[in-house]
């Protein structure tokens, strides 16, 4: 296993990407409840409303934020000649993701604990 | 014979995938000989041609010294229409003078004329040369050349040439046997019939039959302790051919390069001096003023190396052992060094921790180039004796060959040229030979078994207490060659060396390897390479001992003058039945009208 920041970013990106795809499928199915009317929709939402799922949502948020900022990083590399700063770019994307995850996750956590 | 699966047949087999071998294969296949196999003990791109840094000679007339700044002034491109300063004639004269008149002038003429075309051909094939402002190939000065005619690609010229040529050969569909080692040559009744080779990956021995065999196996600097040569440059081809009964020519002429990295021997390209670097002794003096006041650091290599060695011997060397000299490039400036000599800078940084931009770099003379080798004519055809009779179907070019364009001393950048030009010419000659209806000769003897026996012997443990590690023998040989057959030689030293080589040969009979396996056995390879070193070192020492004069790279402290009366001739060494070399001599091809021998002064 050849370890490096590049490798870590690659694994995280893949992992979050695939997780998001799986979530997307579930998400479409849940919301798709609306096809059979408001009842089904609210039932399926109820199912997701449990505190456990709420906390899992923080993971989801982390995944989406990291994946997005890593994606932005790749787009920057594609359009600008910045390969020299590859390590800093990764750290930047990672740190920003962590901060935003905390910022976004805290309200969710509080809400989950309340509810 | 011809019994088992371990026989491979090609029209042409080329041993060696450096510039010489690759050119030959590429040309032969382009000329319609489609069945060409090239074997190389290294992957082709690992060949030592790729290490050449400085350039390839050719009188293209692209640059000149700025008018009125003298011959050592800064260079500029020659404006279109202006007078040309260079010509093949001038290149020829420089080469002859550099060779100390031992070069064969007919071959030199062919080479320098072809030079211009071969450089353009390289460019057309895709080499990325450095450029003049108007887009022509850039040229720099090189030692012994009276005009700037070293065509270069930064300081990785050989690398660029080798990769380009290899790629062209691939394009032509040449089959490469990568990491196959030639062990023996099959010559019967003066007809070459093939080689015995080992596939490294399996350890399998194979008889390779062919209508024509070509050798381009490179140099043999590895017989010395300090050398610029790759670890694989063990002169296998030279030894193999000699063992098969073909003579070797001018083996005593081995060039020592003035600027090997101190204690490593790794080459600091001559381009360092070409771009204006100085040599300084312990006291900081530019001592070349004493030895070559005119050309200074750009005098030919043999002269500069001897000057350095004299300084060292007289106690003005540097370093722990006093064997070093300073190369001073600090006045060239960061920009020039980074642009023209980036690789050289990296080497010094990595291996001795010196940044040549700011500091003096320790260097010392290093065994570099073998002028001698397998005697061949200008078509690459190997000759069997002083009369020039050919060995049917055997060709050689490049550093392993002695077509004798370098005579007693090679000029820098002339050897990439030599390997390219005569590799190409061999290719044409081989194609003609095959298309002329050459038949596949039958092999009579059982060569494979004999070679196999050598390997089995190495792998079997000798009687207790007698066994010896081959590496130890190799080390002792290198020490001996350095001490007694180096830059300065004497009757006494050479006799000592000869005795030592014989002793080591005797000991090799009990040498053995630790690795008994078949797969990729580099231990066996190392032992065989050592055996080859021992074989041709004896020829070098014997030839040097016999030549009682100083000429070019061969410098005798007991015979300090050149002696045209007795020694204006090539040495030919045949292997006799008892294994010792028998020397005979062959005249030098000289145009007495145009290029009669003169004193060689710089």
């Amino acid at each position, binding site marked *: 296993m*050849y*370890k*490096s920041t590049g*490798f870590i*970013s*690659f694994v995280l*990106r893949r992992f979050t990407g695939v997780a998001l795809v799986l979530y997307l499928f579930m998400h479409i199915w849940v919301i798709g409840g609306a096809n059979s009317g408001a009842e089904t929709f609210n039932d399926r939402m109820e199912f997701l409303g449990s505190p456990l799922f709420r906390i899992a949502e923080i993971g989801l948020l982390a995944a989406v934020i990291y994946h997005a900022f890593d994606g932005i990083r790749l787009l920057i*590399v*594609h359009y600008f000649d910045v*390969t020299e700063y590859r390590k800093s770019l990764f750290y930047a994307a990672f740190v920003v993701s962590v901060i935003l995850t905390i910022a976004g996750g805290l309200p969710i956590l509080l809400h989950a604990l309340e509810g | 014979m011809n019994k088992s699966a371990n026989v491979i047949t090609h029209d042409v087999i080329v041993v060696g995938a450096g510039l010489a071998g690759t050119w030959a294969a590429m040309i032969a296949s382009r000329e319609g000989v489609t069945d060409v196999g090239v074997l190389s003990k*290294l*992957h082709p*791109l*690992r060949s*030592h041609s*790729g*290490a050449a840094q400085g350039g390839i000679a050719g009188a*293209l007339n692209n640059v000149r010294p700025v008018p009125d700044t003298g011959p050592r002034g800064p260079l500029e491109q020659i404006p*279109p229409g202006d007078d040309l300063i260079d010509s093949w004639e001038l290149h020829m004269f420089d080469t002859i003078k550099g060779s100390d008149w031992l070069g064969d002038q007919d071959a030199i003429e062919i080479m320098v004329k072809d030079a211009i075309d071969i450089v*353009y051909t390289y*460019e*057309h*094939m*895709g080499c*990325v*040369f450095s*450029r003049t*402002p*108007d*887009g022509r190939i850039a040229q720099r000065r090189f030692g012994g050349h009276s005009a700037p005619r070293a065509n270069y*690609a930064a300081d*990785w010229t050989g*690398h660029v040439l080798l*990769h*380009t040529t290899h790629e*062209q050969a*691939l394009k032509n569909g040449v089959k490469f046997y990568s990491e196959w080692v030639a062990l023996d040559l099959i010559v019967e009744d003066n007809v070459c019939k093939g080689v015995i080779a080992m596939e490294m*990956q399996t350890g399998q021995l194979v008889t390779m039959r062919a209508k024509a065999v070509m050798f381009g196996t490179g140099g043999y600097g590895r017989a010395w302790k300090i050398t610029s040569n*790759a*670890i*694989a440059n063990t002169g296998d081809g030279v030894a193999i051919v000699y063992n098969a009964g073909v003579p070797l020519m001018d083996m005593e002429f081995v060039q020592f390069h003035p600027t090997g990295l101190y204690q*490593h021997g*790794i*080459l600091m390209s001559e381009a360092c001096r070409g771009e204006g670097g100085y040599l300084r002794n312990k006291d900081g003096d530019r001592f070349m003023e004493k030895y070559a006041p005119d050309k200074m650091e750009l005098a030919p290599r043999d002269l500069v190396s001897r000057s350095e060695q004299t300084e060292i011997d007289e106690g003005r060397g540097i370093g722990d052992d006093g064997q070093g000299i300073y190369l001073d490039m600090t006045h060239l400036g960061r920009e020039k060094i980074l642009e023209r000599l980036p*690789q050289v800078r990296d*080497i010094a940084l*990595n*291996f001795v921790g010196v940044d040549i931009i700011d500091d003096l770099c320790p260097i010392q003379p290093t065994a570099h180039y073998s002028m001698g080798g397998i005697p061949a004519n200008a078509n690459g055809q190997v000759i069997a004796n002083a009369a020039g009779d050919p060995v049917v179907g055997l060709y050689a070019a490049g550093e392993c060959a002695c077509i004798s364009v370098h005579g007693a001393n090679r000029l820098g950048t002339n050897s990439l040229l030599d390997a390219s030009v005569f590799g190409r010419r061999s290719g044409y000659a081989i194609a003609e030979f095959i298309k002329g209806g050459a038949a596949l000769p039958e092999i009579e003897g059982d060569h494979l078994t004999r070679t196999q026996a050598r390997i089995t012997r190495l792998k079997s443990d000798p009687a207790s207490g007698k066994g010896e*590690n081959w*590496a130890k023998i190799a080390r002792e040989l290198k020490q001996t060659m350095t001490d007694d057959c180096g830059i300065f030689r004497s009757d006494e030293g050479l006799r000592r060396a000869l005795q030592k080589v014989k002793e080591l040969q005797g000991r090799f009979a009990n040498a053995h*390897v*630790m*690795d008994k*396996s*078949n*797969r*990729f056995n*580099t*231990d066996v390879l*190392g032992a065989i390479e050592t055996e080859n070193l021992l074989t041709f070192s004896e020829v070098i020492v014997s030839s040097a001992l016999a030549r009682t004069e100083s000429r070019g790279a061969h410098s005798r402290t007991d015979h300090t003058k050149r002696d045209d009366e007795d020694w204006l001739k090539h040495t030919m060494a045949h292997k006799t039945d008892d294994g010792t070399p028998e020397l005979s001599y062959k005249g030098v091809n000289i145009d007495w009208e145009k290029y009669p021998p003169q004193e060689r002064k710089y």
Partner: protein
Amino acid sequence: MTNKKITVRIQRFNPDTDQKPYLQDFEVELAQGMTILDALHLIKEDLDGSVTFRRSCRHAICGSCAMNVNGQNMLVCETPLREKIDKNGQITIRPLPYLPIIKDLVVDRSSFWAQYQRVKPWLIPPDNVPEKEFRMSAEEVAALNDAEHCIMCGACYSACQVIALNKQYIGPHALLKAFLRVLDPRDADPRARLDDLDKGDGVYRCHTIFNCIDACPKGLNPTKAIETLRKLAMKRQAFEAARKERQKTLDKPVN
């Protein structure tokens, strides 16, 4: 200077006799200016002749000796032993990762060379070859310098995780070579090259992992070359036209 003993851990494996690779320790005395390759030679010549590795030029130009030292790919011939000793006085040498092992530190680079050949590494010259040289500007040469300097050592290739997953991927070394030919003003068919690179195993299989840059002992930048090729592949028609235009003046002075 007191001489220090170093433990060199070498990964051993002979597929004919061993079940799986294992590490073997050797003691070496650290000497002034010693490279990792020097240490390997000492071990081979004095301690165990069966330790197997490739090398030739010993100054970072032939590309034979790329290996994995303490987890990073590098040329052992140019790397001082001193620099790679960890705090336990150890150094660990393994073969290049992700490639089949032939023996000990020698790997099978077949797929590496196959990809190199796939990109047709040779120049495709235009029809109007001049009598003398093609004229190229210093900038045109400078653009090619990096790619031209690749020594085909494989350090980048064997550090790339995409290669670990899929040997059909062309790989950083061969894409760098392709870059060299595509950008060369003398090459007559950049279009066909870009068409090939545009396929599934070409430039888009690179996922910008950057290990190739980190691993390259020559300080080259395959990622940058790959990004450039991606952009060129998108506008290859225009690029082809520009090339045709440039080739009309290849025999003229550049300024």
